[in-house]
């Protein structure tokens, strides 16, 4: 019998698939649906202090290799979302709350509120590349990252993971900053800085001009990021970027991921992607002699 359960810090998952932040995770019912669809855990939309509409439409462009999006962190704000979260507790699978803020103090404040509402873990969005004043600027500076992680660790008891941007020359030094500040895990990668221009209208398509690239396009970049992080870190890594099938998931696990997240594929494939991936992984592990996910982790380094 193949064992698909994994543990990331203290979070126990029935299978290694997680819903990525920003994907069908703004309401309690959508989070429940993703659990039913087969996600071993779910991450919420990134939640800020106050409600935020996000950028005007168009805020997403479909391209053959994935999506370019600039949602602009829409969210109902900490208080309203906390109620949403409480309403589904106890939930059939763990909920990790993704949060963003403009200061370490606000990060800590929101994290505490989310823990209080039932979050089994906190994911720090340090990496959203298209919300000016937030995100990218912070996520590429080890000192700021360290400050935020420490503040949030002090504020909550649940595991704290930091989501890393690939838009840096050196993702490993950011990962180390997270580890040294007591972070429980890193999540890699967020979207790549991108833009789509309409020739006919001679302008960027997104209302925000800039966006973030996700989907199959970024998979090889994400796999390499996880591989590099695994070489240098001792804390677990959550792999994300372009995962659409069991092979993609296996690449991330073999690169060193403890579990993985699925985002764009929920649109490109459908919510059934969670069950498809898990079933495929199980078959593969069965015939290639991996009794559990742990035994497959990092094997590409040998």
């Amino acid at each position, binding site marked *: 019998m193949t064992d698909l359960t994994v543990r990331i810090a203290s979070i126990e998952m029935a299978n290694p698939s997680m819903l990525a932040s920003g*994907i069908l995770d703004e309401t309690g019912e959508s989070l429940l649906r993703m659990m039913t669809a087969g996600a071993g855990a779910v991450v919420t939309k990134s939640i800020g202090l106050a409600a935020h*509409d996000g950028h005007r439409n168009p805020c997403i462009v*479909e391209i053959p290799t994935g*999506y370019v999006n600039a949602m602009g962190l829409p969210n109902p704000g900490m208080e309203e979302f906390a109620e949403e979260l409480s309403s589904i507790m106890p939930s059939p699978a763990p909920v990790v709350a993704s949060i963003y803020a403009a200061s370490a103090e606000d990060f800590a404040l929101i994290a505490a509120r989310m823990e209080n509402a039932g979050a089994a873990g906190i994911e720090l969005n340090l990496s959203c590349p298209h919300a000016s004043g937030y995100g990218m600027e912070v996520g590429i500076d080890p000192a700021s990252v360290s400050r935020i992680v420490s503040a949030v660790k002090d504020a909550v008891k649940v595991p704290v993971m930091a989501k890393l941007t690939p838009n840096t020359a050196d993702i490993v030094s950011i990962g180390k900053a997270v580890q040294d500040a007591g972070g429980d895990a890193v999540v890699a990668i967020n979207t790549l800085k991108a833009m789509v221009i309409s020739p006919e*209208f001679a302008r960027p398509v997104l209302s925000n001009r800039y966006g973030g690239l996700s989907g199959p396009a970024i998979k090889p970049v994400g796999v390499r990021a996880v591989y590099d992080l695994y070489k240098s870190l001792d804390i677990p890594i959550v792999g994300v970027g372009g995962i659409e099938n069991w092979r993609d998931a296996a690449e991330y696990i073999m690169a060193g991921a403890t579990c993985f997240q699925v985002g*764009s594929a929920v*649109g490109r494939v459908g919510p059934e992607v969670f069950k498809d991936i898990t079933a495929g992984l199980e078959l593969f592990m069965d015939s290639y002699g991996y009794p559990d996910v742990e035994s497959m982790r990092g094997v590409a380094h040998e």
Partner: protein
Amino acid sequence: MSDAVVVKERRPESKDTVTLTFDWDVHVAPGQFLMVWIPGLDEIPMSVSSVGPEKSVTVRKAGEASSALQDLQPGDRFAVRGPYGNGYNLNGLKTLVVGGGVGMAPLMPVLRTIYADLVIGARSSDEILFEEEASRYCNVIRISTDDGSQGFHGNAVQLAESLMDEGGYEQVIACGPEIMLYYLFQACERRGIPCQLSLERYMKCAVGICGSCMLGKERVCVDGPVFDSGRLRMLPEFGRSKRDPAGRLIRI
């Protein structure tokens, strides 16, 4: 990415509604919708009101983007992506179609495809949409206006109820304001008549990932916009609450 299209014809349909036709060589099923980009302004969902090789959207002036769209002239360009959503399930059942206001837009391709009786609801006689064209396809057309300026004085649901009580309809297909659809649904439920209703929610991605359009556990953009009675029964939010662009719950 969106495809640039050129306005072929601009046809005023009523005092606040305009149809724009354009060539776009993509298959669209009755009831599906597009995301229409008005560069520099916004991208908004619009039902497809003609699904042949020549497509059209029928736009009611609601705010800034719909007004700008309405103001486009033949030769002007805008952009569309899609089609999105499930569309109506067209079958051989005896059908009553009910359209409220600009809700007539996705129903026109239905009327061009199947035989059905039709109720058109509007606030006033100068807001009735597509009566003339529909009369070419439907034997029975009944009009309701809120102010009684034409046809039945009252709302489309009341008129539809009286037809249902006479007509032996096996299903109801409808689109219109949610409050109308909510009462229509109750009316159908009381009579045991299945229905297919096209709903609206605030749309951003239209591809089923952003969660902006959630109605309970359903994504209106991909799992809808058309919902049948079975699924509507599972959606306590229907007719009661929706979400604003930030995801906050608001009462309808």
